[in-house]
């Protein structure tokens, strides 16, 4: 009895297959969307779809949805530090043209 209780939550096969189907549809959507001219919104749409796909993989295929709070916090921290790496680097590169240097 106690061994049974300790076992990890088993996700139904239908959930895995459902997530797989959504991922396949989103892949087709992102390819299709890339052929439509949306200007700057192309990349926004592509990355939004990629992030939805990544979230589904992490939550269900990687069981994060059913994992401990510690694991969840660790993953959120990882995303935060990745964002920090990208954002702080870009504060340098994107602002280099903002200030002119008088006398040069």
């Amino acid at each position, binding site marked *: *009895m106690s*061994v*049974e209780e*300790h*076992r*990890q939550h*088993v*996700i139904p*096969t239908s959930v*895995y*297959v459902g*997530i*797989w189907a959504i*991922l*396949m549809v989103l*892949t*087709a959507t*992102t*390819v299709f969307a*890339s*052929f439509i*001219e949306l200007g700057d919104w*192309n*990349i926004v749409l*592509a*990355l939004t*779809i*990629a992030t939805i*796909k*990544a979230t589904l*993989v*992490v939550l*269900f*295929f*990687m*069981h994060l949805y059913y*994992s*401990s709070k*510690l*694991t969840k916090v*660790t*993953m959120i*921290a*990882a*995303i935060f*530090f*990745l964002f920090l*790496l*990208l954002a702080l*680097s*870009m504060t340098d*590169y*994107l602002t280099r043209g903002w200030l002119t240097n008088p006398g040069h």
Partner: protein
Amino acid sequence: MATSDIEIAEHALQHHFADMDQQKETSTFGMWLFLVTEIMFFGGLFCAYLIYRSTYYQAFVAGSQTMNIWLGATNTAVLICSSLSMALGVRCAQTNKIKMMVVLLLITIMFGFAFLGIKAIEYHEHWTHHQFPGPNFQFEGAEAAGVSPQNVQIYFSLYWAMTGLHALHMVIGIGLVTWIVIAGWRGAYGPDYYSPVENVGLYWHFVDLVWIYLFPLLYLISKKHGG
């Protein structure tokens, strides 16, 4: 039934853990911590990509238009299918269907090789067109697109580095899944002890995750305004 389960549990439990639950939790958490370092490892390359893409946007557009979007999309689908078979394989370990687990993991390995095969076709194509950074780099469409071949070379440097590192992870992943198949076939895993299956699964899904971002960033930058 319950007695034999407990016997397996006691057999697999290491002395420094209180129970199987804690042991499994610790093992899986260690894997997540490793994946965090992997996120930062790939993060450096994604950061380089972001900086150069924002600096040489038109050159990146010209470079990305040489990509075969259909091969890239097929590979994305192949990896998603491999993730499904991997996830179902882990589920079979949880539910004590070890033979089915072995079959599903062999399917995962097959998808892994399919991905690498398609990637090899693409690499060969780029290689024969001198789209490899170095002294022999050539980019024929540079003049027409109004971009410097030097800047397109930066795109291809990042393309080879990012997809190459990803492919290396795929090769390691195939090796790890092979190890799980062999150990699983010999009866190493069951519902009370399958941490290695779970952790290799986490690794495999992570490699899939990286590709989920690489595909739009490298293949789908812009299909039309290439001028």
